[in-house]
């Protein structure tokens, strides 16, 4: 595991938003790496900063402090053309497939837009690349290539978005809730498509979503966020089987299984996340945590590694992995 190459290194990333004299710390110091070729799932409830993290990576929102490295280059300090060039290596796919495409443009032109911007290819070669991409995402370019984006359903629009994001052969895709607006039958198609393309193009994915089952299905590793902080990060199967952070456990307990024999969650998390305008001292989860003590209020828990690749920020983690195993 240690010899894997890091594609993205995020160190102590902060993103603050100023509004009406108040400062909201949407992302309050998170550190993690994304390895080449893996899928990292980022889960959490609304307002936890998962989307802001993805947007900060793309520099759609400006990080307040901290550093983001992309293949050893400092993304957080890049400017102008260098930044634009770096963005061709990372592409983002958004939640609402319909509004992320211009309804008055033809599908071929939408997919070709990045190519035209960079003048990377022209004429027949450009057409070939575009048709090839459309074919890959399951849209027949001969039949649908000249149609307008408004003529497509949500699932098809998401396919077109994927084709567009792949036009510059990026290394990484940042998918922000990309399947949440789709029906389950279409969602399954898109998830399968993403897995296929990931293998074919050797992509690295940062998959941001609130649906725990979807995230587990697609991810190699999963990171859990709460109120701007990282709670826990670890291999998907391990984290779901043995959550170490109390918040992860509650989150998994609240996820509903499509099984009538499944046990009803007996202890569900009460209350609501506190306001990020005035976050609790120490551990941010302590106001809702049944295990919280004085220490949690006074001292902020730091990320500590449990077993290889599994780290948690909690003073009283739930599972202590035996070192020998």
């Amino acid at each position, binding site marked *: 595991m240690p010899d894997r190459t890091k594609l993205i290194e995020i160190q102590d990333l902060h993103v603050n938003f100023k509004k009406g004299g108040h400062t909201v710390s949407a992302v309050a110091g998170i550190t993690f790496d994304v390895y080449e070729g893996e899928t990292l799932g980022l889960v959490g*409830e609304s307002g936890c900063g998962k989307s802001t993290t993805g947007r900060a990576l793309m520099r759609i929102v400006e990080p307040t402090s901290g550093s983001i490295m992309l293949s050893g280059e400092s993304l957080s300090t890049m400017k102008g053309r260098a930044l634009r060039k770096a963005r061709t290596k990372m592409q983002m796919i958004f939640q609402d497939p319909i509004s992320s495409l211009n309804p008055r443009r033809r599908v071929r032109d939408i997919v070709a837009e990045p190519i035209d911007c960079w003048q990377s290819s022209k004429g027949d070669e450009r057409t070939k690349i575009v048709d090839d991409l459309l074919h890959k995402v399951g849209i027949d370019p001969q039949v649908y290539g000249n149609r307008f984006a408004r003529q497509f359903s949500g699932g098809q629009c998401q396919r077109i978005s994927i084709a567009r994001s792949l036009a510059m052969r990026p290394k990484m895709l940042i998918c922000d809730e990309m399947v949440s607006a789709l*029906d389950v039958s279409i969602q*399954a198609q898109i998830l399968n498509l993403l*897995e296929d393309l990931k293998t074919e193009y050797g992509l690295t994915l940062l998959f941001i979503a*609130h649906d725990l089952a979807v995230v587990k*299905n697609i991810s190699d590793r999963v990171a859990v966020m709460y109120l701007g902080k990282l709670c826990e990060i670890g291999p998907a199967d391990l984290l779901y089987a043995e959550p170490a952070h109390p918040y992860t456990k509650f*989150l998994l307990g609240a996820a509903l299984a499509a099984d*009538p024999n499944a046990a009803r969650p007996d202890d569900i998390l009460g209350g*609501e996340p506190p306001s990020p305008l005035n976050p609790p001292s120490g551990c941010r989860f302590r106001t809702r945590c049944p295990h919280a003590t004085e220490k949690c209020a006074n001292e902020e828990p730091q990320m500590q590694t449990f077993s290889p690749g599994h780290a948690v920020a909690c003073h009283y983690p739930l599972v202590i992995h035996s070192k020998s195993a």
Partner: protein
Amino acid sequence: MSDSAPLLSVKNLATTFETARGEVPAVGGVTFDLLADETVGIVGESGSGKTVLARSIMGLQPRTNVRVEGSVQLGGTEIVGASEVELRKLWAVDVAMIFQDPMTSLNPLIRIGKQIDETLRLRLGLNKADAKKRAIELLDLVGIPSPNERYMAYPAQLSGGMRQRVVIAIALACSPKLLLADEPTTGLDVTIQAQILNLLDQLKSDLHMSMVLVTHDLGVVATRTDRIIVMYAGRIVETGTTKEVFAQHRMPYTEALLASTPKVSDASHTRLNAIPGRPPDLLQLSKGCSFAPRCQYATERCHNERPELESSGSPSHLFACWNPLPLPTNRTASPAGSEA
């Protein structure tokens, strides 16, 4: 099915929208009964007609360009064709509805207390002071902390989960016999979703309500309903007790829906069995089974002749399919027929 008369009896309910492109049969002939104290889940993808069905039961369809046919009997009163004056007598007292979006189902300019009072004063004829007292009790009942202060709050001052609790409080104000909940937790976070579903469950048994739970999420209906109705393209394709639908479904669409849902219990990178294609255009429904173009078992007959709901042996379990799946006892056996 049982001796007691059903609380809600829906017969051949069809709701058709007259659009510029033609007639859209959003609900195409739905029949089911709901007993007192029973919870039925209606599941389906977008466009399957589940919301239109719920709104038609409530009598909420607009009068122009919409045709509602068939019959909806609620406690002996016919809802289809009833005038608004008649419907107003039923709403809140006999039947109440919770809508999907808690952000838009409350008036942003009116304090939440007043929005709860309105129902109480109008329907139960309470005076101002009594209505306020009852409204605060209701806020407390749905688990809103410090209800006295929240009574004066505007919807914008509350979170999504809290707003949905207020919507539930309004719906429950006159203790309706039937609660229609249309995607009550869609758009809420999972931990809040669990809170709201538990609340609905508890209120349902405390107040002896029947409930229709409309959702696209199979996880929501799995442990919280007595029966399930699966809808596709405006029709019921399978219905049965919750266990029957999950464990002994006969309709390939139900199977495909379950198989394409990612499960937390599965290992990561488990390949999903996606259903190819997409739901049909309601303007161009074939004369056969609507699911046939996407169905892996479809035969000639499926494309030409529409299957009607028929019993699978158990009186509660109905499905509409020409080539139903075998019962699970035979399902484990290999197709070659190597039965033990």
